[in-house]
C-alpha cells in the first residue's frame, strides 16, 4: 500500500533520517513510535510532501509519489492531520469539512462566480455530503460553530472529519491523542478503528503507548533517525533494543 524505501533527510549537517525503509499493508493500522527527536514527524512531513527528502523513495500503491506536493497527494488519496491541529479558524465546522471535499468537486473560479447551474448543483452536493463526516466523527451538533471556538478535543475530531472528506486511501495522523484526556483518547481509538473498518489504511505517530499497543496491527520504531525495529505490538514490546532506546542503556 505505502512503501517507504531508503528515505534520508539532512538538515544542514544533521542527519534527521537515515535510510529508513518499511512497508505498510493495506487496511492496517500502523504506529510509528520512538523517543523525542527520533525523526517521526520529519518522516511524516516527507511522506506527505511538506518537506522534500534528501534521498529515498515513497511509493503509494505502485505509484512513485516521492517529492509530490501535498495537494497532488490528496488527489491520489493520501491525507494527514497535524500534531498542533490546523483548522480553518474563521470558518464554521461545516465549512471546514466542505473544504475537505475540494478534490471531489471541480467547478472553477468563473463557473462559481457566474453561478452556473452545474456549480450550483455541485455546491448542494458538497453541502449535503459533508454532513456525513460530521456524523461519522460525532460533531454534527457543532456544525455551525466557528472552528476557532472549538475545544481542543473537538478540534481534533474536526480535523479528522475534514481529512476523511477527502475520501483518502491512507490517512496519516500526527499524534492524534496529544492533548486529549483519557475519555477522549478512548473515543479516539474507537474512531480510528471505525475509520479502518471503512477500508482506509491508518498510519499514526503517537506517544500514548497504551493507545498504540491497543489498536495498532504493526509498529515501526524509530530512534535517532534510524529504523530500530518493526513488528507486531507484542514483538516490539519485547524487543530489548527498543526497551534500551526508551529507558536508556544501562551499562
Amino acid at each position, binding site marked *: 500500500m505505502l512503501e517507504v524505501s531508503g528515505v534520508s533527510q539532512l538538515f544542514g549537517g544533521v542527519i534527521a533520517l537515515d535510510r529508513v525503509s518499511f512497508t505498510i499493508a493495506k487496511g492496517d493500522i500502523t504506529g510509528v513510535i520512538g523517543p523525542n527527536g527520533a525523526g517521526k514527524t520529519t518522516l511524516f512531513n516527507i511522506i*506527505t510532501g*511538506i518537506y522534500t527528502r534528501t534521498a529515498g523513495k515513497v511509493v503509494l500503491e505502485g505509484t512513485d509519489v516521492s517529492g509530490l*506536493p*501535498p*495537494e497532488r497527494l*490528496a*488527489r491520489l488519496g493520501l*491525507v*494527514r492531520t*497535524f500534531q498542533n491541529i*490546523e*483548522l*480553518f*479558524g*474563521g*470558518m464554521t465546522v461545516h*465549512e471546514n469539512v*466542505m*473544504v*475537505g*471535499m*475540494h*478534490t471531489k*468537486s471541480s*467547478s*472553477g*473560479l468563473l463557473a*462559481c*462566480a*457566474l*453561478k452556473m447551474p452545474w*456549480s450550483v448543483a*455541485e*455546491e448542494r452536493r*458538497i453541502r449535503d455530503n459533508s454532513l456525513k463526516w460530521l456524523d461519522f466523527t460525532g460533531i454534527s451538533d457543532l456544525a455551525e460553530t466557528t472552528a476557532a471556538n472549538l475545544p481542543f478535543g473537538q478540534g481534533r475530531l474536526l*480535523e479528522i472529519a*475534514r*481529512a476523511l*472528506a*477527502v475520501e483518502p486511501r491512507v490517512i496519516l495522523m500526527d499524534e492524534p491523542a496529544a492533548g486529549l484526556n483519557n475519555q477522549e483518547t478512548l473515543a479516539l481509538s474507537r474512531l480510528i478503528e471505525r475509520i479502518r473498518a471503512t477500508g482506509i489504511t491508518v498510519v499514526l505517530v503517537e506517544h500514548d503507548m497504551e493507545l498504540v499497543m491497543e489498536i495498532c496491527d504493526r509498529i515501526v520504531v524509530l530512534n535517532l533517525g534510524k529504523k530500530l525495529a518493526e513488528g507486531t505490538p507484542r514483538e516490539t514490546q519485547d524487543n530489548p533494543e527498543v526497551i534500551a532506546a526508551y529507558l536508556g542503556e544501562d551499562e
Partner: protein
Amino acid sequence: MKRELLKFLAFALFVCLVPLACRGGYLINVLLFVGINTMLAIALNLLLGYAGQISLGHAGFFGLGAYLSGILTVTYGWNPWLAMPAAAALVGCLAGLLGFPILKLRGHYLAMATLGMGIIIYIVFNETIELTGGPSGLSGIANLSIGSLTFDSDCKNYYLVWFFALVTVLFSLNVANSRIGRALKAINDSEVAARVVGVNARLLKVQIFALSAIICSLAGSLYAHCMTFISPASFGFNFSVELLTMVVIGGLGSVYGPFLGAALLTLLPEILRGANDYDIVIYGALLVLMVMFMPGGLVRGFPELRRRLAKRKGGVEHA
C-alpha cells in the same frame, strides 16, 4: 441564500434611487467615483480579504485598464466596447504572468514586490510619452455609447458605472459562497492544511490575483471613458494605499464592506471640505479611531460597537 439575494436587490434599488435624491450636480460625480472605487475595493478584497494576499500595486492595474482603453480608442480608433475587454484580457494575462513568481512570496516580501510592480507601472505611464502623453496625460477619450445613447453626463455615467459595480458585487457574492471562496479562505487561515486536503494554493492565488486585476482594469476603462481625460497622477502609490485603506476600514473578507469603505473614503474628503486646512487632520484622526474601535471594519464594527457599549453599561450597573 435567499436572504443574500434580497439584500443584494435592496442594495441595487438603493443605488438606483440615490441620484433622485441629489438632483444631479456635483454630488452625483462623487457618487460615480464611489462606484468605481467600490469595484476596485471589491477586487482587492477578493485577494486580500479572502485569500489573505496583500497587494500594494493595484492602482497599477487600474491605470493599465484606463491607459489601454484610452490608447486603443484615441490612437488606434478602436470601439470603446472592444477596447474594454481587450484591455481587461491583456491586464489579466499580465497579472497571471507576474503572479506566478510574485505570489510565491509572503507577507512583507509580497507587499514589497507588489509595491515595486505598481511603481514600475506608474513610471511607464510617465515615461512612455509618445504612447501615454506622459505626465500631461491623455485626453480626448471617447465616451461609451449604446446606439444613440451616449454616456456623456455624470448622471448617465453614474448608472453605467454602478451597473458594472453591481455586477461586481454579485460576482464576489457568488465567489464568496462557493467552493473557490472557501478554498481561498482556507488558504488564508492555514495554507498547509488547505494544501493537505487538496487545494492547489499556488494556482488559486494566481487565479484570484488575475481576476482581481481584470476587475481593476475594467474599472480603469470605465474611468477613462467617463472622464475622457487621464493622467498618471491618479494611478500612483498613494491610490494603492487608499484602496487598501478602503478594504480594511470597510471590513476584510466581507462582500459589502468594500462598498462601505469606498463610500466613506470617497465621501469623507468632500464632507470635510468645510473644515478648511484641518480636513486632513480630521480625516486621519477618524481613520485611526475607526481602526482602533472597529478592528473588524465598518461592516462588522457597528453591531460590535453596540454590543461593547451595552456590555459596559451593564457592567457599570452591576458594580
